[in-house]
């Protein structure tokens, strides 16, 4: 009986945790997220070696910064690539963005490879 009583405690906590989780806000890809996904699809062809991802630099939804994460061990014209990102971003409706090309490699830190403020 004592063991059963003890088991009830995690059951209570689990039940309330379920209620807690049920009130969380599920992730939805909004218009801005759709645009960044589209941008990635445009940038990816021919650049597979960059192992690239594109997203907002912060969780702030009104952010105008775009972070393009690439593999920095690849030799590339990062400044020219930033220009391309800027051009394509404008093309998908992401205007006047601040583009940050960030490189990851062997360490856990990102290196800023190029920055471009789109006109």
């Amino acid at each position: 009986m004592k063991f059963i009583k003890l088991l009830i405690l995690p059951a209570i906590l689990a039940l309330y945790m379920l209620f807690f989780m049920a009130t969380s806000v599920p992730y939805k890809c909004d218009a801005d997220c759709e645009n960044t996904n589209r941008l990635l699809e445009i940038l990816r062809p021919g650049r597979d070696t960059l192992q690239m991802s594109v997203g907002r630099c912060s969780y702030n939804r009104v952010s105008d910064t775009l972070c393009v994460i690439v593999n920095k061990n690849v030799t590339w014209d990062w400044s020219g690539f930033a220009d391309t990102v800027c051009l394509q971003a404008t093309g998908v409706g992401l205007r006047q963005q601040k583009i940050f090309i960030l490189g990851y490699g062997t360490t856990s830190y990102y290196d800023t490879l190029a920055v471009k403020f789109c006109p």
Partner: protein
Amino acid sequence: MNYRRVLFCYCLLPLLAGTLIYLLFRNDSWLHDRLFDQDTRLPLLGMEGMIADIVKYQLPDFCWSFSLTAALVVWKNWWGRPIPFFLLYIILIVAGSELIQLSVFNGFTFDIRDLFAAVLAAVLSFFLIIKYEIH
């Protein structure tokens, strides 16, 4: 302790109230995602203003915390042994459930008022049961 009474009034009712508030006045939870389709105009009931915000955002946390505390106090009474600093553990759990939103999950938003409501509910629930239900 009248377990049936405490479970109904202190556990079930606040939990139902909190769930109802969520369902009626909010529009962005996992519950809505599962229960309503995209054509449903949410929130089901619109409310604006400071009081409305308290009802929409702090009251569900208050209800959840109130109910959880009651459930734990019922369990402790049923357990039958003294547990030192029991209220402190409860406060740690409810405060932790708010504070964890600062770091781990993207689907939640931390608000200091939620934390205050949750801790207040825990203390209130605990002392109400101690005072009126345990003889």
